[in-house]
């Protein structure tokens, strides 16, 4: 088949099985847009800002496990996409981002809409490419998908100069069905001796703790994690990125750990003697002060990325490999060993954990005359039957959602954990809804975050994505305000969100349904009403308690046992 570069591009996406491409046109990609016009295999989703395209593709990827695909023009198109690329990078999400580039002959001349996209994105991609010859186009795209989706996933940028997609230059095209890179070997053999050592450490534990992260979700290891954890009967805690891989509620699940984790999870981390880390990366929001992190624990760590091992915390037993595969091997090895966990030690460990749990660290004032954000989330959980995909933005509402919406399946909780990107929630919800057309999708946001990508309400209208936006409107950049209250003697510098729009009217202006809810007693009814509107986006503006804080909290740089707790009258 003889094709020109622009058609190779669309034909390749079709052959690769790409369903959606999230993008925004411009000069450098006009040939490609013309080719998109001529086909209907790949559906283009027109966003309203390139950041929205990357987040939407990201939400699609997180919720489906398939790579998200983005197309933007050169210069400002590419720079607008950078935030979303970095967001995906920090959470290891597979994206293929195609940036148009000025014509090859102009590169380096400060041409109109020229930026060094490869240079700008280099520190926040898994890899990037500049296509120099149309003959390399298909293979380079294949490499991009391969690199993005294998090993530890991540975003890959392919920068395509305009002349590469010239409709007048035709070359033979054949879909490169598979590819090998001599410099990149993502498949690793698990070392048998490591499995043995790990099993011995696990079964010798008196106070074991399983700490599971986003890697368990990325590796689709949810079933294996459940089998493994239940086989041992050990307590498990999950990171913000890992929620749902192991179900909540569940007797072995002690909740999220870290800065806003539960008291029992953090105390158990601090006191454990064997820490079994699965697909987690010992992020500072999880570990707190490294000097005081799990001071008495032998650390076992499974990760597909060798560079994650012993990066922040010294690991005694590293196991490099795919989480899913390693968990299967460990489960088999435990069974084969004919050994049992130390029942007596485990019993007293659980007794201790139950004691910590009895503190009820997530309690809040249920009699408040103001709407408490926690209450909205509890009701959201009830009304959706715990069965929704929930995206979030960044701030207190994000932490409340992680604490109060119980995820019992992986890929349901979609948030920017690593980069903490405000503006993520709404476009991510659009991508999630497109990837899961029959599912219920909620976007929990704050009045500050939502305004960072509010323009995507138009995209949601165009593609009829019936998302339910839960705006926890506290008229503050709540998370900033909380830090200012705790660490800056309540000097609320620039954290008050003034001149807020009328969100109901705003939603209506974009063609959606808007609601404002001011009283606790109206919360449940409003949610029911909104979720009953199956084919409409409903923007729910909940006027919440302005000064609510997220508890428990470990201040940055403190140990797991040094939590701030809520004091209730």
């Amino acid at each position, binding site marked *: 088949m003889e094709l020109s570069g622009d058609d190779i591009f669309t034909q390749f996406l079709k052959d690769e099985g790409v369903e959606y491409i999230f993008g925004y046109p411009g000069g450098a990609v006009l040939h490609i847009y013309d080719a998109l016009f001529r086909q209907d295999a790949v559906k283009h989703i027109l966003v309203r800002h390139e950041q929205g395209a990357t987040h939407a593709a990201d939400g699609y990827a997180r919720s489906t496990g398939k790579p998200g695909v983005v197309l933007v023009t050169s210069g400002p198109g590419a720079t607008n996409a950078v935030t979303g690329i970095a967001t995906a990078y920090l959470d290891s999400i597979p994206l293929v981002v195609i940036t148009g580039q000025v014509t090859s002959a102009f590169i380096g001349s400060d041409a109109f809409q020229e930026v060094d996209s*490869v*240079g700008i994105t*280099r*520190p926040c991609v*898994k*890899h990037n490419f*500049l296509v120099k010859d149309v003959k390399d186009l298909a293979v380079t795209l294949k490499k991009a998908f391969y*690199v993005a989706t294998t090993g530890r996933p991540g975003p890959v940028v392919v920068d395509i100069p305009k002349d590469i997609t010239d409709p007048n230059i035709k070359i033979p095209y054949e879909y490169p069905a598979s590819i090998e*890179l*001599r*410099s*990149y070997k993502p498949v690793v053999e698990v070392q048998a001796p490591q499995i043995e050592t790990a099993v011995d450490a696990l079964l010798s534990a008196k106070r074991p703790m399983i700490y599971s992260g986003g890697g368990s979700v990325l590796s689709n290891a949810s079933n294996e994690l459940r089998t493994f954890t239940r086989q041992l009967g050990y307590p498990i805690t999950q990171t913000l990125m890992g929620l749902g891989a192991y179900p909540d509620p569940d007797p072995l699940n002690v909740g999220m750990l870290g800065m806003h984790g539960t008291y029992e999870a953090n105390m158990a981390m601090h006191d454990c003697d064997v820490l079994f880390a699965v697909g987690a990366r010992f992020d500072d929001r999880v570990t707190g002060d490294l000097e005081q992190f799990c001071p008495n624990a032998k650390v076992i760590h499974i990760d597909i*990325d*060798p*560079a994650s*091992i*012993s*990066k922040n915390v*010294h690991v005694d037993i590293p196991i490099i490999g795919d989480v899913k595969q390693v968990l299967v091997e460990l489960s088999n090895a435990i069974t084969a060993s004919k050994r049992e966990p130390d029942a007596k030690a485990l019993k007293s460990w659980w007794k201790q954990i139950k004691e910590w749990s009895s503190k009820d660290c997530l309690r809040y004032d249920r009699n408040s005359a103001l709407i408490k954000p926690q209450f909205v989330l509890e009701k959201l959980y009830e009304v959706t039957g715990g069965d929704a995909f929930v995206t979030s933005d960044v701030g207190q509402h994000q932490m409340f959602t992680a604490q109060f919406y119980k995820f019992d399946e992986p890929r349901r909780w979609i948030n920017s954990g690593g980069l903490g990107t405000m503006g993520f929630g709404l476009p991510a919800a659009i991508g999630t809804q497109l990837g899961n057309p029959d599912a219920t999708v909620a976007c929990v946001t704050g009045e500050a975050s939502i305004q960072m990508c509010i323009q995507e309400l138009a995209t949601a209208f165009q593609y009829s994505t019936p998302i339910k936006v839960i705006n926890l409107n506290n008229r503050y950049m709540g998370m900033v305000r909380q830090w200012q209250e705790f660490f800056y003697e309540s000097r609320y510098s620039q954290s008050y969100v003034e001149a807020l729009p009328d969100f109901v009217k705003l939603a209506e202006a974009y063609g959606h349904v808007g609601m404002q809810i001011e009283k606790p007693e109206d919360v449940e009814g409003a949610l029911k009403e909104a979720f009953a509107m199956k084919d409409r986006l409903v923007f729910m503006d909940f006027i919440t308690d302005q000064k609510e804080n997220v508890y428990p909290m470990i201040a940055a740089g403190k140990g797991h046992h040094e939590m701030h707790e809520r004091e209730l009258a």
Partner: protein
Amino acid sequence: MQHIISLLMENESGALSRVAGLFSARGYNIESLTVAPTEDETLSRMTIVTSGSNEIIEQINKQLDKLIDVVKLIDITANGEHIERELMLIKVQADTSEKREEVKRQADIFKGRILDVTDTTYIIELTGEGSKLDGFIKAMDTKDILETVRSGATGITRGETCLKL
């Protein structure tokens, strides 16, 4: 501790900036970095001299290995016996007969070669380990040193261990 890390990478444009970018982004030390083509024209070989605690060196090795363009890597220092060489060209003031004699004498001791002579200057070529080159510089009178240029270290493991595909 100082480590010499050698790597083979795809001879692609931008490969060098990935390595340099990694070091600056993660705050690792680079003492020197050299890169040149190999007998296989698809590969270039890079030698990096860096320093840090054992943990940091381990991370540097892993992070380098993780770069998609890096085909193979070896920590020459950690691998035991190896040969390290660096080239230095140094231009010194040699405008009196005493100075010329002294420079010549030192060059002989350090097994250097005099490459260029003018009425007032000498250029000496020296190869060896970095410490030897440092030694030569120390042996010269600072105010007589007009210019020095060093290649940065390169290295190779002794015996059968090789960095090749």
